């Protein structure tokens, strides 16, 4: 169901959260987690998922090098050091949804995506690497690439190992192109070297030409990607 050691990551997140938020909030969080799999309570779980933004304080995560490395071991390219504690709590909540029944699990996660506000959406996309049945979320990830909302797009494109692993070539190419269109920090896209391909390079060259004709500038990182293809040959 999971392509990484779920129990290890779950335990790690649990203790990180416990050491960061106060016991009252921690107990509240666990109460909400219990609703994840209870019959007829998923609406309440969703509300709890939303209300995390009010209950949990606004702060970052204090993660030591040992834990950060452990996370990278579990899921290559995955890092939570930029996450807020709110985001981590929400992701931990998602991890409490039982993945035993694939249909139920998929339906619940899709419901969360469907009704998500901006921050919830950014959280869900950042959480793609930890979801069960990873291949299933390829379409949802492609939908995320189409988002107009800056914070959401950032969560899909940057610091996220999922797209490089699972997006089909066409969708991957759209991701990279859109990153250029929206002036993203290309260095934060994971898997550029692994996924560089001829169609992408052609599209990037055409894009550079288009910019030149319009007297508009082109980011130098575009040529770095073109070079990657030459190197791979």
């Amino acid at each position, binding site marked *: 169901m999971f392509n990484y050691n779920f129990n290890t990551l779950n335990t790690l997140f649990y203790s990180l959260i416990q050491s960061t938020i106060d016991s009252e909030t921690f107990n509240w969080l666990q109460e909400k987690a219990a609703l994840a799999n209870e019959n007829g309570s998923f609406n309440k779980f*969703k509300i709890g998922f939303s209300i995390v933004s009010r209950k949990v304080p606004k702060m970052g995560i204090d993660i030591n090098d040992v834990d950060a490395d452990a996370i990278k071991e579990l899921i290559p390219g995955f890092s939570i050091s930029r996450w807020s504690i709110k985001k981590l709590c929400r992701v931990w909540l998602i991890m409490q949804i039982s993945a035993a029944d694939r249909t139920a699990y998929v339906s619940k996660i899709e419901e969360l995506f469907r009704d998500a*506000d901006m921050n919830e959406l950014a959280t869900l996309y950042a959480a793609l690497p930890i979801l069960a049945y990873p291949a299933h979320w390829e379409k949802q990830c492609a939908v995320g690439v189409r988002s107009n909302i800056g914070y959401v797009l950032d969560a899909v494109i940057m610091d996220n190992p999922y797209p490089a692993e699972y997006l089909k070539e066409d969708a991957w190419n759209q991701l990279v192109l859109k990153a250029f269109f929206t002036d993203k920090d290309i260095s934060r896209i994971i898997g550029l070297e692994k996924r560089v391909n001829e169609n992408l390079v052609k599209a990037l060259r055409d894009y550079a030409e288009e910019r030149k004709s319009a007297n508009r500038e082109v980011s130098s990182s575009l040529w770095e990607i073109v070079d990657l293809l030459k190197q791979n040959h």
Partner: protein
Amino acid sequence: MCRSHSMDEDKKSFGENTPLNLNDIKGMHFFDPHIHMTSRTTDDYQAMIDAGILAIIEPAFWLGQPRTGLSSFRDYYNSLIGWERFRSSQFGIKHYCTIGLNSREANNIELAEQVMELLPSFIYKEGVVGIGEIGFDDQTPAEDKYYRAQLELAKEASLPVQVHTPHRDKKQGTTRSMDIAIEHGLDPAMVIIDHNNEETAKEVLDRGFWAAFTIYPFTKMGNERMVEMVKHYGSERIMVNSAADWGISDPLAVPKTAALMKAMGIDAKDIELVTYKNAITAFAQSGQLDENDFTRTEIDQSQKYEGNTILRGGQQPRVDKSSIIIK
């Protein structure tokens, strides 16, 4: 319904036809607690931030024609907490909303029942500062039923209520809206009665509710009349808004009203309460609105960021609308 409105009438009431001079309101900040940005363009956002509007509330309403299915409501609510909120932020304006089943569409009972079930999924989202805009339109039994149901929801969620008062039979409809709110045990201090006029203001204020006034050409309040209201009643629990929508309306109604109040000698403190602070106080009762979240930095239009015209802080690049050139 239209009356002709000539420039001569303008001159009669206020001497010369007076344009808004941004210098008159320089340094003042505004809050518009009722504006339908989904129907407004980015030109409006640009003008709003230039005029000093820091934050707004967009109430959930209809789209100009009836929705035919639940998905339409869901997608609309999603846009209020998602795309429209984001679009607003790109212009430095903090966007909040109220969520609810509006009075017109409460008359589609089959759909209304479904919307009532959907509401709890949205009222706890970030950016939602109340249940609204709800109330009466024609004062039908269906409108009555869903107004009451949403009052209960507001009580349960501890959210302020933004009440739309009818345009036809307004005096009775407003009284009735207040009676029902009291009947259901709402604290008047948690209820904002909107679209007031000279006929409704006294009772709304006497009974302890917030009184919002919509400054909207032809069909609602004018701002000279608003000046008289504040001279008569003071500024306690009074707020103004534009309710700007797809009709002939003005997204700068709030700053214009402030400018007029200043010119007509209203005290600066009262102007600030009526065009900024009172609305914040009323809706901050939701626990979801914090003045500290508003952007206050002065924007230097000549600044560039990393060599392109995207200004610092994610502000939108400035377009010279008067130029024939587009590039």
